[in-house]
């Protein structure tokens, strides 16, 4: 039980893919103009991440090291294509407003990073939990920044434009670091930890 709580703390806060690892910034900055867009892309990314972590983990024993990357790419690309079709069929308005960013989930490095760092060396159950936690962390950040920009844009239009995206993300990271600082957590927790991403 404690371990699950610990995992959530990692995914949502200490290791948040957007806030701390700074992965998947292109969609994060580009689509977070409204709460609904953030939520849409957040849910799409979350579902791809959960299923891709599950599949990568389930097949990890048969996959030789040399061909793992093409296989991750295959799995992730197929899942994203399915997600795109599902969005087109059941959420056409959201699909139009997210446009090309749904297919571009393929290039979200947060997904391949979780496949490589976690799912390829852990059992299926805990890989799915990892995908869920990391995806939720990413989705919550998208939703927060989307809602923030939508609200601020009522008084300051710049919030909707590209600079507004950078300012909002910077603000979110600053707030997180300030909270961490106040809590007196260790400094290493507040900075990106690239060493965890390489083999």
């Amino acid at each position, binding site marked *: 039980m404690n371990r699950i709580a610990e995992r959530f703390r990692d995914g949502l806060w200490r290791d948040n893919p957007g806030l701390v690892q700074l992965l998947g910034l292109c969609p994060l900055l580009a689509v977070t103009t409204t709460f609904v867009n953030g939520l849409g892309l957040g849910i799409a990314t979350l579902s791809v991440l959960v299923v891709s972590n599950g599949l990568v983990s389930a097949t990890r024993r048969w996959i030789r090291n040399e061909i793992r990357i093409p296989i991750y790419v295959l799995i992730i690309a197929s899942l994203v294509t399915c997600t795109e*079709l599902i969005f*087109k069929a059941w959420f056409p308005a959201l699909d139009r407003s997210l446009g090309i960013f749904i297919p571009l989930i393929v290039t979200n490095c947060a997904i391949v990073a979780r496949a490589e760092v976690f799912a390829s060396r852990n059992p299926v159950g805990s890989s799915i939990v990892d995908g869920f936690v990391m995806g939720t962390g990413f989705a919550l950040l998208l939703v927060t920044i989307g809602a923030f920009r939508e609200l601020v844009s009522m008084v300051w239009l710049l919030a909707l434009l590209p600079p507004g995206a950078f300012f909002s993300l910077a603000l979110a990271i600053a707030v997180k670091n300030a909270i961490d600082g106040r809590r007196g957590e260790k400094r290493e927790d507040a900075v990106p930890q690239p060493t965890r991403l390489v083999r």
Partner: protein
Amino acid sequence: MSDASMTRSGLTLAAIAAVCTTLVALTFQLTDERIDANRQAWLEQSLQPVLAGVSFDSGIIDSQLTFPSPNALPGAGDAIIYRVYSAGAPAAALFVVSAREGYSGPIKLLVGVDADGAVTGVHVLEHRETPGLGDQVETGKSDWATQFRGRSLGDPVSAGWAVRRDGGEFDQLTGATITPRAIVKAVRETLEYYAENRILVFGVSGDPAPPDEVSR
């Protein structure tokens, strides 16, 4: 890598590719019908705004006419046309066409032309252009597409039917010339088609009853 391990890797890749392809194929089967219905609904919803300023008293959707491929309209597949009439006389035609030379794939457009050959509106239905640059041709993102309203083949004259960079009269977009260039060309070709095939489009001139079938 030894031959045996290379074969094994190849087989693993092939097996996973087969599984992934099946997954995509199944999802496609499951969603195909709904996607088509959504596409049609979006098209029908976009028809009215493209007819801004045209007065007509006939229904739009039941006036659909399909010109089978190949035809002279821009785009690859069958061309779909809607006609509206005012007191029995042709008021305007709506063309669903594709600009083939978009930056990333075809751009599906709705072009409205009134009975005199002037554009009533241009609306981008589907595209894959670059977000923030080429996607400004979308009606909701900027008013770029409104510059076509009221223009016709004589206004501007033929050389003017190009973006400014090519010596024409239409604005390009900062950082994106290819997308507007493709759309200007498709709109011009639609007008040219209309000019030559007005009778084909409206059936017998002035007759509100459309012919059942049009073949070229």
